[in-house]
């Protein structure tokens, strides 16, 4: 029996639009164990980003409970949620979200700054993680001197460097061509084999197949099973 690191129970998220209440997530139940590679698959507007924001502690549920590493995530002060994100979550975004003025290495060091890691250790850790994703040669390059695939590798390195509980990826291949997308998925597979926990959000069923589990979300409802398109 592997360790349960994420648990959602009857989780509801609503947005108030004027007088109207829009229910985006309708009683989501989800459990993720250490080492899982979960694909969350759903069409546009189904609530994927909303769910990812809650998993990533950028937002909190309206009702229901969300436990991450045994801790109840609720309406905490912003600083407290920042600490949880820094410690537990490694974000990988569709648009990479690298800071253009910083070198690849400095970008990777960013979350370590907020973790209070001293400079020397930051340099060592960012260098070895960039080496791990195959960018040892490109550490001093700025994002605009890198290809899309390389930029996404930098972003992955940045997500890995804090050794978070969950790697949380939102459409990580969305901005890449097919070949580069495959390479990034191969990297995800390797990381999964090393025991990393990955939650990947996508609307592409081929991409979703990389996961060891596929969870479908349609209109705010979650269902799990083999997806046969």
């Amino acid at each position, binding site marked *: 029996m592997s360790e349960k690191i994420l648990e959602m129970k009857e989780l509801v998220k609503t947005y108030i639009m004027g007088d109207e209440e829009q229910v985006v997530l309708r009683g989501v139940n989800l459990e993720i164990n250490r080492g899982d590679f979960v694909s969350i698959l759903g069409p546009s507007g189904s609530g994927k980003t909303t769910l990812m*924001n809650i998993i*990533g502690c*950028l*937002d909190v549920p309206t009702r229901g409970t969300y436990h991450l590493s045994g801790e109840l995530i609720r309406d905490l002060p*912003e*600083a407290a949620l*920042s*600490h949880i*994100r*820094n*410690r537990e979550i490694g*974000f990988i*975004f569709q*648009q990479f*979200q690298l*800071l253009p*003025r910083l070198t690849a290495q400095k970008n990777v060091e*960013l*979350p370590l*700054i*907020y*973790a*209070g890691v001293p*400079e020397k250790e930051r340099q060592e850790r960012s260098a070895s993680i960039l080496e791990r994703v195959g960018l040892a040669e490109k550490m001093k390059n700025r994002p605009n001197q890198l290809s899309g695939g390389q930029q996404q590798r930098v972003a992955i390195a*940045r997500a890995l460097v*804090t050794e978070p509980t969950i790697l949380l990826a939102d459409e990580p291949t969305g901005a890449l061509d097919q070949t580069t997308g495959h390479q990034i998925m191969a990297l995800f597979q390797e990381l999964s084999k090393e025991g990393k926990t990955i939650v990947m959000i996508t609307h592409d069923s081929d991409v979703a197949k990389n996961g060891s589990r596929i969870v479908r979300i349609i209109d705010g409802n979650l269902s799990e099973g083999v997806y046969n398109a």
Partner: protein
Amino acid sequence: MLKESIKMALENIISNKMRSFLTMLGIIIGVASIIALITIVSGATATVTNQVSSMGANKVTVQIQGTPLKKGLTQGALESLAKIPNISGISPTISGKTTVASNGISMEDIALQGKNDVYFKNTTDVISSGRTINPIDIENQSRVSLIGSDIVKKLFYGKNPIGQEIKIGGISYTVIGVLQESSRFSSAGQNSAVMIPYTTAMGIVGAKYINNLDIFVQDEAMASTTTQQIEGVLKQDFNGNTDAYSVMNMQSILDTIQSMTSILSMMLGGIASISLVVGGIGIMNMMLVSVTERTSEIGLRKALGAEPIQIQMQFLIESVVLSLMGGIIGFILGVALAWVVCIIIGTTFVLTAGTVILAIGFSAAIGIIFGFAPARKASRLNPIDALRSI
């Protein structure tokens, strides 16, 4: 964290060179003008204060305006003044205009000053050669004179005039000394002046009244008491008409100068600080633009674990670095400007630690005050919205 923030701030300022410079310009101009004004005014104050106090803080000056009936002080009043304790000497001055002549050349409209030995005892460097007027000259109403350097040049062709005869107002005097040549504006008049014993001026020239007195006190600490006693004697002599004379001691002149210049520098500084406020608004504007431009960066930093306070500090540091850089450039420009002006107008250049602290403090304060609102705005951005903003 602080080091990172400062580095980030510098990188951001450098990557927007032109915009940063234009933003800083307001602070540069503001700080430069404040520093220049303060430095120039305090230099001028120091120079004037020096000159005034070199005239002696132990001196009480009495000016007689007189009344229609009584144009000046009499010898009698002078004697009652001399009886006041703490007075070491009284130096009356009788001034007038006269004509001097020698070797067949004459000069008109020459300042004539009747003085006594007390004046020379209490004033240094009056003559460059010869001797001064002594008590015997006063007693005997001697016809002796001290003449200014311009008169020496013109009437004696620059040759030693001591022992020579000179006609002052048509009467013959023996030249006993030459007045020190002065380049200072405040005393340049003495280059073409003649001095004779005041008793001679009263007896022979026929001046009846003394219009100016320098009274020297023994104990400077008691100067104000002595000044009051002097005023008492004068009031009595002029039958209670206090408009007929004015009494000033050097200390009160110094106080007046200092309070005037400090009001002046406060006024000028106040005007100049308006440009600092304008500069601050410029910084605020740039920072607000910067926050908007970097919304997604802020969102990302928050997603990666930055606390709101850390975001706020980063932007605050950026505006402080920006205004401090402006302040330092402005300070250097202001000091350079003041230095040039001090050389031109011939006053002392004084740069105090206070001025440095003022410049640094002012610009840092501007950065904090005007950077606060943009930094707060940045720290309050919702990371979800901020990340979506690309």
